[in-house]
């Protein structure tokens, strides 16, 4: 009886434990091993020490993909979170039709990324897209967006902001948990509206911001689909993925190209392991300042 009781939890856990070993732990270790080898899928991997890393560090496209990813992660994500807070505060009012508006802001984030990317490739089409048409009406010559290496990433950030509905909903839930008495007490002390925002709303939202930041960070580091679709040959003319001029070549995309187009599984694994380390370091830095159970 006693032994059976100890065995039962493991039986309950078994589907996940098997999955954990086969689809998480093994791949992490195997990636580390492959990163020290030259491997093209067809002949067995052979040990090359650190040379994959050396090759990457002298590869311009590697650095380009890393910088592009840093841009989307450290500029795009905070911008879209700032926008999400603003919208959540505006939507945290009671008026007729607010439910409809909440749904409307959430909707784009529920749309499949491929569909959202196609939509924005069309919206930001330099000649026929709606944004440049409107800009033209007010006398501004709109940029070439995804055709211009300087404007392609800002275009992707617009798309990212458009898809921030999930963070908006999380912020909205966070706002609704802030006790009204806090605001009332501060107002009695003569606090102004900006002060209420700065000294009560923003600090009280800190755990929610952490949650959104972690989700956003993870999404930024693996940014792939939208850029892959928008920079694919049909949209931008015959060019490699990540065009124009590699301005939309992101880390995960270059990793994919290295592994499955160039069949450089070894150096792709080196990239994968660095991605693993980068995300582990960034997320543990965030988590150290925040406990999941405390909120």
């Amino acid at each position, binding site marked *: 009886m006693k032994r059976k009781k100890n065995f*039962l939890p493991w039986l309950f856990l078994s589907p996940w434990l098997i999955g954990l070993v086969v689809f998480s732990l093994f791949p992490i270790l*195997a990636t580390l091993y492959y990163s020290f080898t030259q491997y093209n899928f067809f002949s067995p991997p052979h040990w090359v020490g650190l040379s994959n890393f050396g090759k990457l560090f002298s590869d311009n496209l590697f650095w380009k993909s890393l910088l592009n990813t840093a841009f989307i992660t450290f500029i795009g994500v905070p911008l879209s979170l700032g926008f999400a807070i603003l919208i959540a505060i505006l939507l945290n009012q009671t008026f007729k039709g607010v439910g409809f*508006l*909440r749904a409307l802001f959430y909707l784009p984030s529920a*749309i499949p990324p491929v569909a959202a990317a*196609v939509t924005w490739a*069309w*919206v930001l089409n330099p000649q026929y897209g709606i944004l440049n048409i409107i800009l033209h009406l007010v006398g501004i010559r709109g940029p070439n967006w995804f055709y211009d290496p300087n404007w392609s990433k800002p275009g992707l950030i617009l798309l990212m902001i458009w898809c921030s509905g999930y963070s908006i909903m999380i912020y909205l839930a966070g706002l609704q948990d802030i006790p009204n008495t806090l*605001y009332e007490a501060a107002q009695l002390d003569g606090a102004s509206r900006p002060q209420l925002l700065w000294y009560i709303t923003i600090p009280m939202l800190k*755990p929610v911001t952490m949650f959104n930041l972690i989700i956003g960070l993870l999404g930024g580091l693996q940014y792939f689909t939208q850029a892959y679709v928008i920079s694919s040959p049909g949209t931008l003319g015959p060019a490699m993925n990540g065009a124009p001029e590699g301005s939309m070549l992101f880390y995960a995309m270059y990793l994919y190209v290295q592994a499955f187009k160039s069949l450089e599984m070894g150096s792709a694994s080196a990239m994968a392991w660095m991605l693993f380390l980068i995300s582990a370091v960034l997320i543990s830095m965030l988590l150290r300042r925040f406990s999941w159970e405390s909120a």
Partner: protein
Amino acid sequence: MGKRVNLSGRILVILISFTFAAPLIWLVLSSFKPPNQIFLQPPKWIPNPATIENYIQAVTTIPFFVYLKNTIIISVCSTIGVVLSCITPAYALSRMKFRGKGILLGILLATMFLPFPAIMIPTYLIFAKLGWTGTFLPLIAPSFFGDAFSIFLLRQFFIRLPGELLDAARVDGANDFQVMRYVVIPLSGAAIATVAVLNFTFMWSDFVRPLLYLNDSSLYTLSIGIQDYQSHHATSWHLVLAATVIFILPIFVTFWAAQRTFISGLTLGSVKE
């Protein structure tokens, strides 16, 4: 702040929401335009005459229904797998006592943060060795071995169920299987539905995994099918836009039907309950 009605804030939010809706409206309007109107200079908002020809052509030139069928098969099977494989681990991690539980919870959280590209290569190699590439299996099989985020979400829900109910069942002689089957699961409909819906939408939208494993166009999902078509037909915007609208439609419908449950379910996994 708070919940007071604020006129300028209200006007601002309505203006921004128009901007937000504009891309979708533009997409839908464009999809009803004949090709010569799509590329009109200067362009027009309203299609005149409106046509459904794009839709008819889109579902016939793009093998739309094949892609749709594939997407449904993958999403449904994977969702069944996640629901079946996540309930028992979530129950064990919330309602059972055993050594090593704290460490396992830590590992669960850590795997939630594991970026897929970091483990993509060996995962692909596993399925290649099994001879499963070019089938739906690499997309479906992993779902039957637990998903960290879904387990975490269910665990957060199970842990908040009133303990007296579970204890009462135990006093009546129920074992853990029975407590789970007859007490916990019936009380957790909302959480299980949320996990199912989230996983379904994830699989419905997924791009990277189908791109890795499905190398034959007869197996394509809508995501890679539409991307593939678009990358080969640069000038066929009218068909791509129509196909995109049909692609979005099911999400749209499900969403409006289940708006309330869905939005409240979404926040379940976050810090605030």
